């Protein structure tokens, strides 16, 4: 028989292992995809961080670890390290407990106004830290709406602000998983006789657990490295490792202690990231095989009308949203009050007579409501430099700087983030290549947790000599902000690329599409919206970035958050009024950017 005879003769010949040749273009693209983000991280992240850290150990006659012992024997340092961990753990716990019922309401139920509530919940997450600090101080100060509680400057105040920021992380991360869960498993358990509580405990919660733990660990990271909000609210008594690093470097020039603290923070962060990665991997195994299309179908099927049993969760949601709105509304209301003679001043420090007179002359007439004069005086003052010339440039100029720098930072973060996401989303055949990609993936998350202050200060001390003398270069601030935004960009784009069925790429390929065309027609087409969303998110984050920027910005070229911090630091009711108005402006721009993102309806924003 012809075919079989032929095949027997052929099989006698042995062929060496056949490897499909890749074109030079493909190889160059892969090298660029890995090389550009790696080089960026090496120069602008690793180098400054290592430079900063080496200050702690390298002394004239070699390496010295004695600093650790000495610094950890200081009671204040020990207390702050304990406080940082305790504070972050407590905040993660509260966010989880509050966030779970909200995730249920916003991702499993179908009702009018759900989209609006989802939007409101995520607003605090993108608000600049300085704005939140100012808002909470206004809310809790003796003359504020909650002044009677005497919470200003307390641990509770910091905790409230941390929860305010991070509850969205739990809601979105857990919500996204919950939405994609197949309800049939729950139905099956019900049919088998399980009570609703039992279904929750035995079917629903175990499937949510990986995302719950992942969200909690991210909240922990954010809180453990919180800077702006703690700096504004904490004073000297309370703080985090991060604020202490700032104080030690800028106030006491104790680089050794700062460096030891940076390492301590690094150890905590890497530990939590490794833990989160392990938990996340367990979760991804459970979800294996779910594509975007399948998820959408599951999400649509899983939503139902609210029932009576949902009332407690609904109540938690509405109360939380109201509490989230309170500081923001207070901020807006106070920013509109005319600051005259210190009487209506929201500032902790009364305005001087001289200042009051100067304010009165610039203030617009305004209207009186309940004995309080409201006007746009604070906003009009933004064209100036504040009382006692608190600032070098007008606030509007700072806003212009902020916008320009944020656009640059967004561009950098997108280029690096998209390249990195494309590379990480591939599963190479080679085991070592896969392991290397996992490490690369983890490295990209590091800026999420490593002290922005360390990065900012590290820039100053390492990028100060040729060939990298960039200290006075205007590119440093956008680069630092891009570093901070990078993990968020990757976390927005990567899940979408990972959700692309590899067989769709294969289909295109078999039909004759060369690799670059597969990339364009499949990956980039599908990721177009997430990339836009990531751009909005990066823009919002860059606008509000404070920790690294505060080191790098020059007095004559400040960003808006730096100006706000300066305004609350210099006495004068008018200055505080301007800080409030500037905070509202900054918040408005940030929220506008996020509103665009939300319109794109990309589920993974703010989820990890």
């Amino acid at each position, binding site marked *: 028989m012809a075919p079989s005879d032929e095949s027997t003769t052929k099989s006698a010949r*042995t062929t060496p292992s056949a490897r499909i040749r890749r074109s030079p273009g493909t190889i160059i693209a892969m090298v660029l995809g890995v090389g550009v983000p790696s080089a960026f991280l090496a120069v602008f992240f690793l180098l400054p961080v290592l430079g900063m850290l080496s200050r702690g150990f390298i002394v004239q006659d070699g390496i010295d670890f004695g600093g650790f012992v000495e610094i950890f024997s200081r009671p204040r340092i020990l207390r702050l390290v304990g406080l940082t961990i305790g504070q972050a753990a407590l905040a993660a716990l509260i966010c989880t407990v509050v966030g779970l019922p909200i995730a249920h309401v916003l991702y499993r139920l179908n009702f009018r106004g759900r989209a609006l509530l989802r939007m409101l919940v995520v607003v605090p997450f993108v608000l600049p830290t300085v704005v939140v600090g100012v808002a909470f101080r206004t809310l809790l100060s003796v003359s504020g709406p909650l002044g009677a509680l005497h919470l200003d400057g307390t641990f509770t105040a910091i905790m409230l602000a941390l929860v305010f920021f991070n509850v969205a992380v739990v809601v979105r991360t857990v919500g996204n998983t919950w939405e994609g869960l197949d309800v049939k498993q729950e139905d099956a358990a019900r049919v088998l006789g399980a009570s609703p509580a039992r279904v929750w405990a035995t079917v629903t919660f175990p499937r949510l657990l990986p995302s719950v733990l992942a969200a909690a660990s991210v909240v922990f990271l954010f809180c453990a490295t919180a800077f702006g909000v703690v700096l504004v609210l904490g004073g000297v008594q309370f703080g985090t490792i991060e604020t202490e690093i700032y104080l030690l470097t800028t106030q006491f020039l104790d680089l050794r202690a700062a460096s030891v603290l940076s390492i301590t923070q690094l150890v905590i962060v890497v530990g939590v990231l490794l833990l989160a990665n392990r938990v996340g991997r367990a979760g991804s195994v459970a979800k294996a095989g779910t594509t975007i299309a399948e998820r959408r179908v599951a999400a649509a099927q899983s939503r139902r009308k609210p029932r009576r049993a949902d009332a407690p969760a609904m109540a938690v949601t509405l109360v939380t949203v109201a509490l989230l709105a309170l500081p923001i509304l207070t901020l807006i209301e106070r920013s509109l009050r005319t600051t005259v003679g210190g009487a209506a001043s929201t500032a902790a420090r009364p305005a001087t007579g001289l200042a009051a007179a100067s304010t009165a002359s610039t203030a617009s007439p305004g209207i009186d409501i309940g004995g309080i004069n409201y006007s746009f005086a604070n906003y009009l003052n933004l064209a100036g430099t504040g009382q006692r010339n608190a600032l070098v440039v007008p606030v509007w100029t700072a806003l212009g700087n902020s916008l320009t720098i944020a656009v640059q930072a967004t561009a950098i973060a997108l280029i690096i983030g998209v390249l990195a996401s494309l590379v990480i989303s591939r599963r190479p*055949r080679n085991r070592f290549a896969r392991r290397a990609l996992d490490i690369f993936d983890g490295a990209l998350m590091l800026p999420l947790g490593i002290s922005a202050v360390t990065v900012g200060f590290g820039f100053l001390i390492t990028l100060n000599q040729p060939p990298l003398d960039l200290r006075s270069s205007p590119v440093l601030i956008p680069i630092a902000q891009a570093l901070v935004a990078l993990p968020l960009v990757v976390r927005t784009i990567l899940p979408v690329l990972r959700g692309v*069925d590899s067989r769709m790429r*294969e289909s295109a390929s*078999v039909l004759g599409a060369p690799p670059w065309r597969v990339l364009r027609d499949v990956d980039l087409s599908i990721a177009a919206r997430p990339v836009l969303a990531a751009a909005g998110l990066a823009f919002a984050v860059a606008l509000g970035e404070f920790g690294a920027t505060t080191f790098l910005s020059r007095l004559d070229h400040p960003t808006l958050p730096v100006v706000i911090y300066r305004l609350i630091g210099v006495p004068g009711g008018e200055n505080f009024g301007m800080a409030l108005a500037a905070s509202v402006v900054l918040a408005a721009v940030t929220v506008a950017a996020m509103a665009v993102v939300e319109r794109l309806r990309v589920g993974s924003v703010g989820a990890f």
Partner: protein
Amino acid sequence: MAQASTSMTASVGQNAALSIDSFTVSYLRGVGRNEERLPAITDLSLDVFPGEVLAILGPSGSGKSTLLRAIAGLERLDAGSLTWNGHDITSLVVHKRGFALMFQDGQLFAHRSVAENIAYALRIRKVPKSDRDARVAELLVLVGLAGAGERRVTELSGGEQQRVALARSLAASPKLLLLDEPLSSLDRQLRERLGQELREILKRTHTTALFVTHDQHEAATVADRIAVIMDGRIVQLGTPAELRATPATPEIATFLGLSGDAA
């Protein structure tokens, strides 16, 4: 070799279009430290003749999909070679082979319309727009979806999606069409009807095709010859009638749903 016993086809004396020569392919199982490479296909040889529709029939896990992917160039061979009309194409990249592959769930580009999906391979080959449009219209008629070009693929039923996937695969007149369980995701009635249609379309367009399935009725409906594959090896090769008449082993007989004594 088992396939030597029962292959009696019109192809005798013809030169093979596609020659698979002692393919060995392994696959990766497990995660992290537990991962290991296991053989999916072992020393498999097979010839496909011009215009022939050959079904690769086997139970799940027998390696039939892996074989198809290896022919497309999507799996790396541990050993073996592949020739097309006598030319060695073993190391040719996927997109230059001029084949087409249709998956069980179509894998249509969800962000493109029906017409854009079908025209995809033509665009890559820089076919002028007027020719492209004419070809798309022709293919839509061929697969029974005339006038559906502007619809979104997400609005289509499962059967319609598979028709579009077939049209997309046929658009650039591939040298070889690879079909990976193209009907398995459909319900039985539709599967039977589409099976017959598929055969008619393949014959009308003189397409050489390899068709992977676990359903022997489907294989018998669509294919000229059937290769039964088990544990990564071809255990029998022949026409549907030959296979039913003389299954080579009791195992094959059982798999084909014939009683054991038929062997």
